[in-house]
């Protein structure tokens, strides 16, 4: 034994024990696994959630130094991105300007024309500011970020955005920073608007970029109420020089002092931008995810033969995903921070880890023997696959280890994740998935058990669905023969796939839940990343509505956690920073003040526009889109992804302009703008937007409704309201809808049980009106198919063992219910025997007609226990010992012989039984005894009936000893008998006046039935009460019927003939010698020998349209053309014998030993679909109408819709149906079916079809 083998054995044993463990304690193991998953994922909480919102970090201005590249230990709360110099420093200069006092002579354009005009002088000031402190002269040109060309795609912005120089952005850029252009611009608003993009825009627009404040805060509008214009001059600096900046700040404050401004100027904010995913990266990413999903789909599709496919697929995906999460968590725990983009490598990790092991496990477990215990199945399945699982895992680990030695950091990290992921995946497979699998298998076994309990299954489904309002209370206890649909687990619905998907979605409300969860997650992420500055907005709102009033005037502004601000307002930064002596309390211009005070306030309109500085101005850039800075830089091909910028404290500038100045700068065309007609028009633009959005929403809604309607039409192929018949049937609850929210009412169909046979029924024959059945005991009974009454019992002179006395008793005409007295039959409750059996010595009071359904659930023991003690001689009651039995039998016989009146019909052909050996033993088990020497016309009770046919009122019975007998079905008399053959008759066909008998030795005999009519043909002497004309010609009882062998084909087949069918003037035989032969009925001439099967023929179908189908032991089905003898098609459909074949005009239905029912297209031979039935049933088939198929099952018959393969109904034949399979099934003309059910016959009417036939 090599090491390898020993290792293999050890591994196998270990897996076996593990499987036992997992299957024994599923719940604790699942709990343990969940706990370990959660524990391993715990470190993930510390990782930042993915999001593209920028991250901020605030430092003090005073001791700011450019951070170095190397991480310097632990510097407090410094984020790890705060390394190295920023991309740029942003120095905003916030300008608020107003014309004050407001004069009524001013036009609306004056609100912003002169304030905007001041931007040029400010720009001039900033550009020309020079700071000289001895160490060198610094100007803006030296410090600012020099930009080059714009991106090639931005030609239209070329005139507006600066190129080849300092990045200095202000509203002046609209006019190329030239005062002359501004002054000569007749319509400023048009100039501003012409650069705006059309349609909806979410990210930063050019207007936002140049003004530096959101559009609605600029005040550049004809309808501005506050009449304060706000804009920002944004300086983008490449390097930081504190002294230059502070001197610039002081200079500007000196020139344009802000009175009530106390903005904090002591900290700068560093904004870090995450990597943004552009469209160019998104497409490959989406592609990889699509491939990943396809992989998962194709993998989980292979899960088969389990109770819940979806559950196991989910478990498989959960296994892989949580193993990945565990690997990331473990790596984080041990100090490895993931630097790779998780979203990008995730699909590759899943693919590397793979779902293969899970599938292999499932397959291995479900392929273990079903009859084993669940524990053992799991353990066996595990140990079978243990070696390959271990081998695969070792291989994968090796490959990954090789990858680890590539020494490329990214690949190393990937490999590390993959290794940890693989190990944790193995762990989860072994513990989590195996346990889930064991639970699933156990559930399946439970389902199997339930299926074996029809008493439970027959009960109405107690499953309350959310869409199933129960209008009526459930029936208390259904009678044993109620028809209910099986539970969904038991049924094998063959719905179209798309419908099943839709039903599944509808049932689980998957889409709604997904949308709900997605919305919640999305809102959470939105609130977390705060891309729209919602919190800032809220903070501003709160501070504005603060009852304490001057929130911005001093003290701590009520931030709602906007940024980590330093505690306390800090010292006065101005004094420390200023180089030029800046006045700590800048004196406002006296003229402004005086003008502001003596201006008379008008009616409602503030004449002096108030310029106030609030907390929201301190970091005005927060109100901008979070894409503001990235988009500004991206125009110059500078990315901010994974980098940061530093925003310096804002420089506030307040401008008060006199009306005179405003009028001077006015353009001649400005006055053409009418003053605002009323204040109500102020809201007009907003309203318009609202209307637009509403209209768009409405249109989208209508479109959605239309789309859903189309989808519904596409998916829902059945027209519920249009086809009358289908609709009616659906209303009756015949179609399966209960699974999907429709509860069919319990149908009232109940099968009619025909009791009477003491043994299992062997042969069934029917011509539509009459039904003949023969049991293993050799008894033939004739039934009326309309009422279910037993008309005749053939062995009139049968011998029967009396169980009470133990002796053999010759029973005369027991159950001989007179056909001449129909009124005794109708009720079925009155014992009718004694009324008309006067001539016989022993009037029998036996009830043979079917009793009401109420009592049919009791086991029918009447044939075994003879309770008619009065019919026996009194000595019978004395319980004489068995040895006296023969004496009594002789006594009885004697008495019988004395009392028996010679029957006119029987005298010629029916000698008394005494001519044979007196009391013949009849074994109840009915095994065949060697035929005793008998007279010519003696009915033979010794041999079993192997084949039976019924035409008109003649029953042809073929016996195992080769005898062919013709019985009168109504009177129960033997009309003629033929003993030409010796070999047993295996099959019979009775067509017109010919009988074809196939024998065990392969020979085929053709008989002709001759009728000598003394009174005339077609004189049916049936009971007047039920004189429905049978379809076939009848033979009156006066006729002398003779049966002659016309031709015998000795070697029709080499082997026994198994099947014989006759129709349309043809006789078709199938034999075990793999061939099918077609004979002409008239001259018994063999027309064709059809070869093509590779096994014995087991089933043949031929009908009036000359379609011939044959099925064999090889599982093949052949369709033949009877006219030419050519094979039309040849398909393999079954593993094992084809047991039964039926054709309709459009399809062929076959059932096999593999419990599969296949439906084939008759013209093309393509399998349409198949129905997997329960084990051990499905040998019998019948087609009631073009679209209704009936199959026999274990104690039940099932009705199927042939068009869709839907199970329509299952009718349970008896209370306990264990082991009693329906083996034969005959479809009668009146849409009833008869099937054997143990020793009973069951007559089931199909009312819906009756309806249809009408």
């Amino acid at each position, binding site marked *: 034994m090599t090491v390898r083998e020993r290792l293999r054995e050890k591994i196998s044993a270990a897996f076996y024990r593990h499987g036992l463990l997992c299957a024994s304690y599923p719940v604790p193991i699942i709990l343990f696994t969940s706990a370990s998953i959660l524990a391993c994922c715990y470190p993930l909480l510390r990782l930042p959630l993915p999001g593209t919102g920028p991250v901020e970090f605030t430092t003090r201005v005073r001791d700011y130094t450019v951070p170095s590249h190397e991480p310097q230990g632990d510097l407090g709360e410094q984020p790890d991105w705060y390394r190295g110099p920023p991309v740029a420093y942003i120095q905003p200069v916030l300008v608020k300007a107003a014309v004050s006092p407001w004069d009524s002579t001013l036009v609306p354009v004056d609100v912003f024309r002169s304030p905007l005009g001041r931007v040029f002088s400010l720009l001039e000031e900033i550009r020309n500011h020079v700071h000289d402190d001895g160490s060198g002269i610094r100007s803006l040109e030296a410090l600012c970020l020099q930009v080059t060309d714009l991106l090639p795609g931005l030609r239209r912005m070329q005139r507006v955005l600066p190129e080849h120089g300092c990045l200095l952005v202000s509203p002046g850029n609209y006019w190329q920073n030239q005062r002359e252009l501004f002054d000569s611009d007749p319509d400023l608003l048009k100039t501003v608007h012409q650069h705006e993009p059309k349609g909806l825009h979410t990210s930063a627009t050019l207007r936002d970029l140049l003004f530096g404040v959101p559009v609605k805060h600029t005040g550049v509008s004809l309808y501005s109420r506050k009449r304060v214009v706000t804009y920002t001059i944004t300086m983008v600096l490449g390097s930081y020089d504190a002294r230059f900046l502070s001197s610039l700040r002081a200079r500007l404050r000196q020139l344009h002092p802000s009175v009530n401004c106390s903005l904090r100027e002591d900290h700068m904010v560093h904004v870090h931008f995450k990597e943004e995913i552009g469209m160019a990266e998104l497409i490959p990413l989406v*592609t990889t995810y699509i*491939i990943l999903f396809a992989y998962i789909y*194709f993998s989980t599709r292979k899960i088969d033969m389990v109770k819940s496919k979806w559950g196991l697929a989910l478990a498989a995906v959960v296994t892989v995903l949580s193993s990945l999460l565990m690997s990331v968590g473990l790596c984080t725990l041990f100090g490895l921070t993931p630097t790779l983009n998780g979203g990008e490598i995730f699909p590759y990790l899943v693919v590397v880890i793979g779902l293969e092991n899970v599938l292999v496990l499932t397959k291995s477990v479900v392929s273990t023997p079903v009859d084993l215990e669940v524990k053992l199945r799991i353990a066996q399945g595990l140990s079978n696959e243990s070696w390959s699982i271990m081998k695969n895992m070792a291989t994968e680990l090796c*490959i990954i280890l090789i990858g680890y030695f590539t020494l490329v950091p990214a690949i190393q990290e990937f490999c590390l994740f993959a290794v940890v992921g693989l190990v944790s995946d193995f762990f989860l497979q072994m513990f989590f998935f195996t346990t889930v699998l064991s639970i699933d298998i156990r559930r399946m076994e439970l389902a199997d058990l339930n299926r074996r309990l029809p008493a439970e299954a027959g009960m109405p489904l107690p499953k309350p669905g959310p869409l199933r309002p129960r209008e009526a209370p459930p029936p208390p206890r259904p009678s044993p023969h109620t028809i209910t649909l099986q539970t969904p687990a038991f049924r094998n619905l063959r719905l179209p796939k798309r419908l099943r998907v839709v039903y599944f979605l509808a049932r689980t409300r998957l889409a709604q839940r997904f949308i709900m969860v997605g919305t919640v997650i999305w809102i959470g992420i939105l609130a977390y990343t705060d891309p729209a500055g919602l919190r800032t907005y809220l903070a501003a709102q709160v501070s504005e509505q603060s009852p304490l009033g001057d929130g911005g005037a001093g003290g701590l502004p009520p931030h709602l956690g906007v940024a980590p601000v330093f505690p306390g307002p800090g010292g006065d930064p101005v004094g420390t920073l200023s180089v030029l002596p800046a006045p700590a309390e800048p004196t406002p211009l006296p003229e402004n003040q005086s003008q502001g005070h003596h201006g008379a306030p008008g009616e409602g309109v503030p004449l002096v526009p108030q310029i106030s500085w609030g907390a929201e101005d301190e970091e005005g850039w927060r109100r901008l889109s979070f894409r503001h800075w990235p988009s500004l830089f*991206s125009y110059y091909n500078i990315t901010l992804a994974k980098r940061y910028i530093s925003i310096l404290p804002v420089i506030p500038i307040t401008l008060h302009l006199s009306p005179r100045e405003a009028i001077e700068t006015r353009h001649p065309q400005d006055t053409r703008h009418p003053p605002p007609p009323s204040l109500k028009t102020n809201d007009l633009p907003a309203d318009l937007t609202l209307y637009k959005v509403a209209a768009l929403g409405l249109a989208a809604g209508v479109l959605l409704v239309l789309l859903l309607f189309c989808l519904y039409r596409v998916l829902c192929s059945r027209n519920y309201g249009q086809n009358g018949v289908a609709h009616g049937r659906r209303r009756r609850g015949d179609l399966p809808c209960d699974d999907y929210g429709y509860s069919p009412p319990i149908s009232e169909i109940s099968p009619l049980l025909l009791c009477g046979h003491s043994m299992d029924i062997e042969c069934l024959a029917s011509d539509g009106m009459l039904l003949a059945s023969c049991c293993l005991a050799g008894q033939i009974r004739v039934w009326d198919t309309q009422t279910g009454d037993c008309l005749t019992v053939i062995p009139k002179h049968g011998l029967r063992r009396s169980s009470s006395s133990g002796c053999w008793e010759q029973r005369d005409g027991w159950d001989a219910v007179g056909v001449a007295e129909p009124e005794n039959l109708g009720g079925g409750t009155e014992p009718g025997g004694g009324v008309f059996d006067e001539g016989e010595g022993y009037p029998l009071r036996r009830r043979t007609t079917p009793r009401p359904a109420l009592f049919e659930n009791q086991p029918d023991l009447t044939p075994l226990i003879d309770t008619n003690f009065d019919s026996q001689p009194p000595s019978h009651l004395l319980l004489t010992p068995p040895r006296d039995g023969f004496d009594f039998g002789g006594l009885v016989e004697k008495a019988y012989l004395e009392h028996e009146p010679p029957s006119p019909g029987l005298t010629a052909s029916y000698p008394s039984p005494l001519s044979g050996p007196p009391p013949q033993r009849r074994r109840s088990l009915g095994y065949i005894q060697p035929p005793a020497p008998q007279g010519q016309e003696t009915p033979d009770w010794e041999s079993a009936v192997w084949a039976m046919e019924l035409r008109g009122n003649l029953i042809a019975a073929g016996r195992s000893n080769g005898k062919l007998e013709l019985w009168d079905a109504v009177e129960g008399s033997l009309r003629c008998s033929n003993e030409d053959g010796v070999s047993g008759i295996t099959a019979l066909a009775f067509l017109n006046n010919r009988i074809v008998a196939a024998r065990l030795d392969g020979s085929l005999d053709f008989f002709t039935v001759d009728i000598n009519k003394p009174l005339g043909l077609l004189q049916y002497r049936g009971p007047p009460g039920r004189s429905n004309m049978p379809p076939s010609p009848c033979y009156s009882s006066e006729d002398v019927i003779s049966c002659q062998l016309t031709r015998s084909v000795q070697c029709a087949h080499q082997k026994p003939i198994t099947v014989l069918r006759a129709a349309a003037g043809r006789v078709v035989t199938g034999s075990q010698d793999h061939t099918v032969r077609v004979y002409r009925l008239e001259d018994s001439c063999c027309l064709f020998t059809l070869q093509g099967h590779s096994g014995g023929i087991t089933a043949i179908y031929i009908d009036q349209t000359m379609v011939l189908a044959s099925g064999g032991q090889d599982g093949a089905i052949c369709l033949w053309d009877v006219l030419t003898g050519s094979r039309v098609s040849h398909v393999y459909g079954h593993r094992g014998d084809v047991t039964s074949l039926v054709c309709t005009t459009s399809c062929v239905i076959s059932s096999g030993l593999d419990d599969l029912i296949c439906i084939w297209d008759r013209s093309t031979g*393509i399998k349409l679909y198949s129905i997997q039935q329960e084990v051990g049933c499905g040998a019998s088939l019948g087609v009631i109408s073009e679209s209704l198929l009936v199959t026999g099952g274990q104690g039940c018959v099932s009705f199927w819709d042939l068009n869709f393969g839907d199970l329509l109904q299952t009718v349970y034949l008896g209370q306990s149906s264990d082991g009693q399979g329906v083996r034969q099934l005959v479809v009668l003309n009146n849409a009833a079916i008869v099937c054997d059910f143990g020793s009973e016959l069951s007559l089931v009417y199909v009312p819906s079809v009756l309806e249809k036939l009408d």
Partner: protein
Amino acid sequence: MSRSGSGQTDPSRGPYIAVITNRSTTLVIRGFMLFSIGVFLALVLNLLQVQRNVTLFPPDVISSIFSSAWWVPPCCGTASAIIGLLYPCIDCRLGEPHKFKREWSSVMRCVAVFVGINHASAKVDFANNVQLSLTLAALSIGLWWTFDRSRSGFGLGVVIALLATLSTQLLVYNGVFQYTSPDFLYIRSWLPCIFFAGVITMGNIGRQLALYECKLMSEKTHQD
């Protein structure tokens, strides 16, 4: 037809078989499917190679999808169609039908790994080109070992990779396009590896498609 298939045949498959009747039709369909897969992969993988410049959506994002010359995707598509048809054909000729992992899930896995190799070559920063080439070569061989393992597949892959590299080189010499940085004998040394992995992948897809067709064909012969 497989066991599970016989149990779950849906009725819609019937007319589908009826439509696909003769061999040439299926061949054309297969070729077209392979062609479209090739074009799609070429576009996506080309996009992977485009280096990112800006974070914001550039205004010409659509044009960046088609940033390469127009003839590259059709060429890739044609090549993949040829390869995908050639593989099953060679399997047939050699008389050794490919039996290893003939499932769609395995094919999907193979495609995913192929995209991953491209991803790695585009995104991962390697120390030098030799390392890059060696890594890619190892990955490609691993791909072949994991999903193919047939000698014919390996041989065809190597031959086609060499041919493709040669033709690219000819194109470069004729000045149709240029490498950004030729590193090894005036070619990008990772190019053959990518070609090899691509050939294996397309061959896998082609074989799977052919298998599907074989199933249909065998069903038809059963019916005849």
